[in-house]
């Protein structure tokens, strides 16, 4: 800790990082949902590599936080359960990305 470079570390407030999104599995889910309008359970399962139970549990947490919404809609006359980010979820993820990039930028500047 006597390294003088540590004293040059800018202040970083870890509290500003959204812990709900920061968890790796939920981060993967949010990232996939951020680049699409909506996806079904099977697609998310394939993209994130999570098991059904794990995915379901993380989706519940994100839904409780109001970050995602689960809607049933008809695609080509076939019912699909689509999972998508809510506006607040999209905003939260964008904010998380900003915070992380800013935090990483601080360390890279050393």
């Amino acid at each position, binding site marked *: 800790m006597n390294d003088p470079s540590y004293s040059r570390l800018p202040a970083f407030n870890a509290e500003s990082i959204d812990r709900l999104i920061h968890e790796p599995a939920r981060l993967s889910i949010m*990232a996939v949902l*951020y680049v699409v309008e909506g996806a*079904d359970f*099977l*697609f998310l399962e394939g993209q994130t590599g999570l098991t*059904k139970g794990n995915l379901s549990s993380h989706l519940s947490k994100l839904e409780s936080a109001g970050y995602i919404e689960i809607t049933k809609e008809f695609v*080509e006359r*076939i019912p699909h359960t689509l999972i998508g980010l809510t506006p607040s979820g999209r905003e939260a993820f964008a904010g998380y990305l900003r915070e992380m990039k800013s935090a990483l930028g601080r360390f890279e500047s050393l």
Partner: protein
Amino acid sequence: MNSPLDLPQVERRVLATLNEDGLLDLGLGLGTLVIALTMNHGSIVYLAMTPVLLAMFVRGMRRRFTYPRVGFAKLKSPPMTRVKIIALVSVTLILTMITLLSVPRVTPFKVSGGDQWLLFSYLPAALILTIAMIFAHRHKVFNIYGYILIVVGCFLHSRLSPVPLQYYLLLIGAVAAATGLGRFIIFLKNHPKPDTGHSDE
């Protein structure tokens, strides 16, 4: 290594999964073959019906084979206002007209004044290519741009050579359909249908 923070990479992976089935290439190939086989009949009806049948074919096949295997995702459409679409179609049509009408002056094409009007029969084809460009833009299927370029290149080359456009289209259609079919078979092998139902978890 896949990083969830690398959004372009996440998007590329999503697009790759959605287009892994090769059905788009298969559909484009079959559509091109239909156009090539029917173009000598001179009916615009075939030409106009082909994109509709193609879209129905790809959607139907995806509903039956792709979505139960890899799931379904609805892509975010890039902003494409009505004004942009009208502008794109108009510019394409105008450029096509200018190109076609100026071709006899700058190349050794033997097109008499009266026959120039025959070139207007290519306008529906230009319109179809424009629709394909809009589709490629909205669905981010970038290999369609390459496909369009090849078709346009073949059209121009066929005007310079004695080989009719029909043969070029037959070749392009056969190659695209065979590639698509091969990718579709590999997709089915790599993604066996899950025992349980899909999506409605």
